[in-house]
């Protein structure tokens, strides 16, 4: 079942919003408007958009260091995210967290690899205990698979039967370390070892991810059991800023062959695409400039005593 035309354009809008947000971040980082560092989601947009377009209101998302795409696909405000990266009082967490530490409604992220996995699992347990309809979606990367706590948590999730979908975005590189040098054996096998059902996709097509995750999320909702989705994907940008050690020629080819915007954009007319892109660009530019104007927070020793 393919989504209707309106859904096609909505998906493209979401993809492009993330793409343009992240491009704006990388473009402006050298100008000194942001603090610290950042990890962009360029190339992986179809994962967040395809999965999170199925979210229901009480659902919970726990993301990682590369969280901008997840946050925006969750419905987060680009201005609040720009402001957070700029360390402004209007940021998602008032400038306290920065790029990797976001919390808004039922969206959470943290910057330590693996540590979010038990917490997301515990959230799913809590929702099960409370008999709530909510489910949890936790995003991991291939690099995270090196952390032992991931396996402790998968074991517990399987034993205690909690409603969670683990999504591994295997972008084939952890900072600068290729997956072949860091992950032995199969990624899916890590889930089946604990008796957790897993599906694996090798695609950048948002529709395929959308359809597959619909099936998985419906199962998690109905059976209240943990499941996993492994998405073999591509990170187009550097790990953070300017730290890409990969061959530029290879990267250029991947960006032609696996760009989720090119793949899904082909389903829209040039006029439709241009209209969406123009609107989103205006929106993102406005958000960026508003965030620039926003005030910095002030540390209050009294409040923090």
């Amino acid at each position, binding site marked *: 079942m393919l989504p209707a035309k309106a859904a096609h354009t909505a998906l493209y809008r979401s993809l492009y919003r993330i793409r343009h947000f992240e491009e704006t971040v990388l473009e402006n980082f050298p100008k000194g408007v942001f603090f610290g560092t950042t990890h962009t989601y360029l190339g992986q947009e179809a994962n967040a958009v395809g999965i999170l377009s199925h979210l229901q209101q009480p659902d919970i998302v726990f993301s990682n260091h590369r969280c901008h795409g997840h946050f925006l696909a969750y419905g987060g405000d680009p201005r609040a995210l720009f402001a957070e990266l700029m360390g402004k009082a209007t940021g998602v967490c008032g400038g306290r967290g920065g790029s990797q530490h976001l919390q808004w409604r039922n969206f959470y992220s943290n910057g330590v690899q693996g540590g979010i996995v038990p917490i997301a699992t515990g959230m799913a347990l809590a929702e099960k205990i409370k008999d709530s309809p909510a489910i949890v979606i936790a995003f991991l990367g291939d690099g995270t698979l090196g952390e*032992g*706590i991931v396996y402790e948590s998968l074991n517990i999730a399987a034993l205690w039967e909690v409603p969670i979908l683990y999504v591994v975005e295997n972008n084939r590189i952890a900072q600068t370390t290729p997956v072949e040098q860091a992950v032995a054996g199969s990624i899916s096998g890590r889930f089946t070892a604990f008796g957790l059902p897993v599906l694996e996709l090798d695609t950048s097509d948002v529709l395929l991810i959308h359809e597959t995750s619909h099936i998985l999320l419906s199962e998690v909702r109905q059976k209240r059991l943990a499941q996993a989705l492994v998405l073999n994907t591509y990170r187009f940008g550097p790990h953070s800023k300017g730290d890409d050690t990969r061959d530029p020629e290879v990267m250029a080819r991947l960006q032609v062959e696996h760009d989720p915007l090119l793949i899904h954009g082909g389903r829209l007319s040039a006029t439709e695409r241009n209209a969406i892109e123009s609107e989103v660009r205006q929106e993102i530019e406005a958000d960026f400039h508003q965030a620039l104007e926003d005030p910095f927070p002030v540390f209050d020793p009294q409040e923090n005593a």
Partner: protein
Amino acid sequence: MTTVLESLNSALHQAFTADERVYLLGEDILDPYGGAFKVTDGLSSAFPGRVLTTPISEASLVGVATGMALRGLRPVVEIMFGDFLTLAADQIINHAAKFRWMYNEQVRVPMLIRTPMGGRRGYGPTHSQTLEKLFLGIPGLQVLAPCALSAPAQTGVPQSLAAGGPGDLLYRAILTTEDPLLFIENKLLYLQPVQDENSLGEYEVRLQPGKDGTTRTPWAPAYSLILRAAPPPSLTIAAYGYMAELARQAARQLAYEQEIFTELVILTQLAPCSMQPVLDSLKRTKRLLAVEEGTLTLGWGAEVLGRAAEALGPGLKACGRVAAQETPVPASGALENSVLPGVTDIFSAAIQLNRL
């Protein structure tokens, strides 16, 4: 008299009865075993479904509890030996303790981690440590340590929950904490009776609620013990946990054998640092001895002395510390007695300080 163990066990039962959001996670905590030190005895029978026995996965179970706390429950975690807290350090420091502040006060993590610490049982280097100093000074993390004292039980209150006692401390912490809280139970305290000013007839016992503005647990008290009818004390001894018991024995010996009179100040809140009761005592005595079971370097006692020096300046006549030797804790009782601080060490250090 109720023992510390009975008091803690009773507090868990009462907390489970009082609030259905309270859950317990830990290793080997189900009946009939009821936990390695039996603090959780009977809970799984009384509250089936709310006591979750876990795999041997300390890091993950603290994380799972953090997730439960973020979503509105009040989980209690038992870490079988305090030594194993290091396995969960990332979850405690980089996750649970960070979230409230890092997420701009938008969330709360009402999770309590209970764990037995300390030696003198011959368990050897990895099951006998006093490691709480590693977790002091972590923003967002409270650390409490009960002692074997309470106020006299009020009418209608079970003795196990007498105000300020270990049961009361645990009960209130489980039900009211808004932040992750480490609850340090010294193993040798478990079988001690919980005493009050009636049973400790020769001491004047004053209980002061924590209130110096930094505390998030205003009911975590400090105790002050002075021998009745003794001359004014010339030395403040600061201690917590089981060391407070040893310090009380030393204080008695100092009075009767050396005519050195002391005020023993026992804290139950270790973090956030709440030192006012010690400073109040020092205004009278001008001399300070801090005793702890952990190793000396960069320990709790160093912070006590630092705060005292800042507050009193030249008014502080003398100060010193008693702590463990800088080695792992040996298994052999003969060695362990030499490594861990005892009554004699406190006694000798007090005599030295009193000469200055």
